[in-house]
């Protein structure tokens, strides 16, 4: 497309005599940001659990317990959130965690290859799973919900079958050695997982991609309207495949972290991430329909999730109630997201004409 700068455009007299822009209050501006609702949610649960849990909740051990959960979740939920902004879901992250974790343990544990080889193999498993997800979704137009659900079951089966075939067990030990233990699986001060730093790194990369690069603009556009995005010349297939690979690589990284942390791998790990990552993204203000969301929002969503699911143990409440609270929060978040989106779209003087809600 040729880019021709147009100069000297004479302004026509505005016929519709537009009313002067309403002075936007800082509240109005704030209410249009995707993470505002998420911040309210995080503050709310933090206050509630500080009151209920007291010193147990805000002690170093208490903080570490939910920060560790949030960190591992964020490494997956951030790229999953990015994918959701582009209008797709990834339900295969659970099996990718298990598959990459088992791959690493078998390659470096059972076969005794150097740790780095096991790590590369684990990442390769993640990249391959994501690539296949993205390719099938782009080529067939089958909803990603079904494609990645199929991948989650299929990959779980392969992981279980191959593990039993190769090792005769579903539980493979691995001694990561001091360097890799320190890099992926150590506890800082005996309490805080090093995964917290990995999560921060992932957050910085995803935030940069989404907010600062043309790629991020393509993600928003594809989630907003795939056909219009394609018409503007965006390589939609390539973008989608890279997004699916990112979420699977996030899952593989968590697989590596858990293998180093627990000195081994199990075929049954990881499945909780499938829904938890989506819950965190939605509580974090990502629209299920795509086109809207932010990195700070998803981080707040993972914090909210972790505070509720871990904070419950610091209170006198039975932990049975954590799921109930999360379910209610999820529902509230979806309703709030819709309200915030309406607010965001009503910055004008007139009611906007939106094709579909």
């Amino acid at each position: 497309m040729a880019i021709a700068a147009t100069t000297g455009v004479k302004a026509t007299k505005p016929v519709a005599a537009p009313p002067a822009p309403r002075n936007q209050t800082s509240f109005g501006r704030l209410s249009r940001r995707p993470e505002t609702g998420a911040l309210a949610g995080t503050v709310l649960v933090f206050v509630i659990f500080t009151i209920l849990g007291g010193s147990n909740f805000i002690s170093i051990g208490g903080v570490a317990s939910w920060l560790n959960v949030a960190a591992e979740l964020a490494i997956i939920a951030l790229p999953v959130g990015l994918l959701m902004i582009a209008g797709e879901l990834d339900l295969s992250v659970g099996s990718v965690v298990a598959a990459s974790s088992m791959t690493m343990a078998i390659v470096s544990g059972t076969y005794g290859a150097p740790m780095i080889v096991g790590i590369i193999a684990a990442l390769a498993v993640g990249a391959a799973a994501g690539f296949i997800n993205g390719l099938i979704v782009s080529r067939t137009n089958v909803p990603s919900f079904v494609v990645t659900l199929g991948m989650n079951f299929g990959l779980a089966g392969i992981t279980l079958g191959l593990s039993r075939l190769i090792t005769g067990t579903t539980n493979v030990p691995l001694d990561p050695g001091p360097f890799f233990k320190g890099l992926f699986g150590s506890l800082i001060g005996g309490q805080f997982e090093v995964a917290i730093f990995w999560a921060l790194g992932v957050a910085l990369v995803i935030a940069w991609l989404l907010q600062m690069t043309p790629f991020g603009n393509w993600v928003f556009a594809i989630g907003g309207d795939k056909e219009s995005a394609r018409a503007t010349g965006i390589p939609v297939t390539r973008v989608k495949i890279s997004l699916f690979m990112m979420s699977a690589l996030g899952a593989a990284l968590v697989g590596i972290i858990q293998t180093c942390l627990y000195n081994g791998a199990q075929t049954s790990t990881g499945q909780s991430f499938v829904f938890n990552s989506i819950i965190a993204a939605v509580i974090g203000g990502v629209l299920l329909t795509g086109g809207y969301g932010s990195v700070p929002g998803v981080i707040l969503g993972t914090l909210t999730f972790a505070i509720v699911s871990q904070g419950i143990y610091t209170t006198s409440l039975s932990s049975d109630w954590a799921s109930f609270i999360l379910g209610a929060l999820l529902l509230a978040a979806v309703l709030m997201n819709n309200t915030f989106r309406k607010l965001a779209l009503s910055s004008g003087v007139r009611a906007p004409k939106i094709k579909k809600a």
Partner: protein
Amino acid sequence: MTEPLLKLDHVGKSYAGTDALADISLQVEAGKVLCLLGDNGAGKSTLIKILSGYHTPTTGTVEIEGKPVVFNSPRDASANGIATVHQYGGTFPLMTVGRSFFVGVEPTKGWGPFKRFDKATANEISVRELKGLGITRINDGNRLVGGMSGGERQSLAIARAVYFGAKLLILDEPTAALGVKEASHVLRIIMQARRKGIAVVFVTHNVLHAMTVGDNFAVLIHGRLADSFAKGERTREQITDLMAGGEAMAELEAEIAQYELEA
């Protein structure tokens, strides 16, 4: 006479044996507005899809500036300077004005891995181009597109097409969803594009809007070119009758007369 910018020669399109469009010959010159009129289902959308690269015609040829072209994708069409703006602007309601304006052609600054989307420039240019089309209410490129009115969104899409050097602008029912004032603003923008030497294909079923800005007119009925004429050669009544199919209107008038008698 100069070569027309766009020329269709006996273009037809059939789906599974039925003709959606048959034997269409048309041309548009630079700096002229061709109004494509027709009732729903007359074949207007099929024709637009052929021009914007979504469909390839089954028969006939399309020429751009005298050279025959085949569009295999919307990308081919835009590479030939054809930009299509749909009724709802084809824009992204949840994106900011600046982001939406530059989708797919984002300006960047910086170097290597630090090369980044230059949002300040994007916002500045998009607001400036909108101002150029008389949209003065949008003074911040960070505003969401969804917060704009229908006419403003149309203007944004047209501004975008013009800025990126479109030679032929296809406007698909740009005024259909708009109020009277907003529609007249969009018509004004069409005249502005025309003055810049852009060829415009204005698809509408509003005869009044068409007659306000059109230089040439083509009426489609059941996938065929029922009539084509230049400005001033037909009256409004003649065009309306033709579009609706004269009989249908006559019947309606008779029915109304009957009701009035009964009342």
